[in-house]
């Protein structure tokens, strides 16, 4: 309840208030409007506090949710379970971060490869193979068309599938085909499949959004298409799309919590195991929620910061493709810039 923010801060500085959209909807407030907002703010604050008391705090305390038995193991260092609980939570948090780090790195690597592949295929589809015999040229063109269709199909399928389903079937399928891996790898592979597709789309639209002159200049100094992509397009796409990529990191981090469906011992799963002993689900999940909010909020801020920095250095605001936006709301869903 940050409702205590003192009323005068908003109306006294009409144009430059914290929320820019206010200026679209409302004129700069005059003395009367300012008085009204102050009164409304005070009334609303009181209503919120009273409402929070009667609707949240009181029912919770009536159900005994503030009892020491439930909170003690989490907040009281002298409690006998305190260290064991936090040690487990620490292990869980580490497992979460490890899975997220592995997934994001591999998703970046494979996503970049996929993006380059798709750009190259698109380039090749335009080639006519002049100077080769007709059947060879036709065969090569057919091959690129087929490869193009296959990659496009894979992208659409894995973008449209829930990550949970991908992870579930990876965890069930790989052992069946003889790949017995540690649980963390099933989670990482599942997350990678989904996120590499999303990242590839982010990068691809970044590369296609670059001015045509970039490509033409590269061609005119004699770079091959692959060199053009590698040396000219990709670095710029990375820079422009950096905020979207950082947001994707938030998504990955949130999605690691799906590990519980394949019994990977990440933070949420550990918390669930602890609640079976301590019987304090509300309190335990509260702690988990706070952890995720802290980490993800920091990452979102970082994304916003990089975006502002890039804007300052003259890169026009990246056109974030709908795929990237969709990704933000994903099972994970993350704070965008």
């Amino acid at each position, binding site marked *: 309840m*940050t409702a205590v923010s003192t009323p005068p801060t908003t109306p006294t500085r009409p144009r430059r208030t914290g929320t820019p959209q206010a200026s679209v909807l409302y004129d700069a407030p005059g003395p009367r409007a300012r008085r009204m907002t102050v009164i*409304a703010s005070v009334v609303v604050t009181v209503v919120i506090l009273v409402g929070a008391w009667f609707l949240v705090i009181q029912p919770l305390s009536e*159900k005994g949710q503030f009892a020491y038995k439930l909170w003690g193991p989490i907040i009281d260092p002298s409690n006998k379970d305190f260290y064991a609980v936090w040690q487990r939570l620490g292990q869980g948090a580490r497992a979460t971060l490890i899975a997220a780090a592995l997934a994001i790195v591999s998703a970046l690597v494979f996503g970049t490869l996929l993006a380059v592949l798709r750009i190259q295929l698109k380039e090749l589809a335009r080639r006519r193979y002049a100077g080769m015999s007709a059947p060879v040229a036709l065969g090569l063109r057919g091959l690129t068309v087929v490869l193009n269709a296959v990659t496009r199909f894979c992208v659409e399928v894995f973008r449209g599938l829930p990550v949970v389903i991908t992870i579930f079937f990876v965890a069930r399928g790989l052992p069946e085909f003889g790949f017995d891996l540690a649980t963390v790898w099933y989670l990482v592979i599942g997350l990678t499949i989904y996120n590499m597709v999303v990242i590839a789309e982010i990068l691809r639209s970044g590369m296609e959004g670059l001015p045509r002159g970039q490509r033409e200049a590269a061609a005119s100094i004699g770079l091959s298409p692959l060199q053009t992509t590698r040396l000219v397009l990709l670095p710029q796409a990375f820079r422009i799309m950096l905020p979207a990529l950082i947001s994707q990191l938030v998504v990955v981090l949130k999605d690691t919590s799906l590990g519980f469906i394949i019994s990977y011992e990440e933070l949420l799963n550990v918390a669930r195991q602890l609640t079976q002993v301590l019987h304090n*689900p509300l309190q335990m999940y509260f702690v988990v929620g706070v952890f995720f*909010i802290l980490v*993800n*909020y920091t990452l979102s801020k970082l994304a916003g910061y990089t975006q502002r920095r890039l804007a300052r250095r003259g890169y026009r605001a990246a056109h974030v493709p709908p795929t990237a936006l969709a990704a933000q709301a994903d099972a994970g869903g993350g704070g965008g810039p």
Partner: protein
Amino acid sequence: MNILVDRFGDFAGGFWVTLQICIVAGVGALLVGTIMAVLRISPVAPLRAVGTAYVTVFRNVPLTVVLFFMAFGLPVLGSSARFLAIPGLDAIFTRLGTDLPYFRFAVIGLSLYTGAFVCEALRSGVNAVAAGQAEAARAIGLTFTQNLRHVILPQAWKAAIVPLGSVIIAMIKNSALVGFFGVTGDLSQTADNLVSGEGLALIPVFIGVSLGYLILTVPLGILLDRVERRSVTA
């Protein structure tokens, strides 16, 4: 591949339950999101703070945690969310009125979670309207509501439709998670049941369940691409 044909009933049933969840939760999310968006753009600072806090919390917490809160937290508080068993509505969406609360919990969780993203989509729409538009509207003497109805909202809506669609697509995919939180018979729980319970072959089940989700998400995605391309060229 016979499984796809033989067990078509299971897949179709799962599809129907998933569709029900998506419709109810989608409406709920739009409601929650609109309310939060109004709060976030209101001139009263405490209301804005409430909206901001809501969005910050639900955007940064995994849906899994939200659903855990619903499935394990609400029963502790003695609630089974009976208020969602709205007469008339529970005739169409029969799961809303059942004794088992998990469908209702899932709907609440999904709505609350998606609502935060709906709020941001709507807000980005309002932000996309140039300040000069509203200033011009005020200058020619339109009142606040006229301004909103004839100038701001039509433009904001146009800018919000693509992000809003992406949020709905994401919600459909997220709904797969509820099968692991006590909702029986939706697509993902059907998959789990057929694979773990009955030991059917993986690949056909995977194809069947995937088709169920892709039928919902891919056409919507293509439609959105169209809308976006048109709005860019226009």
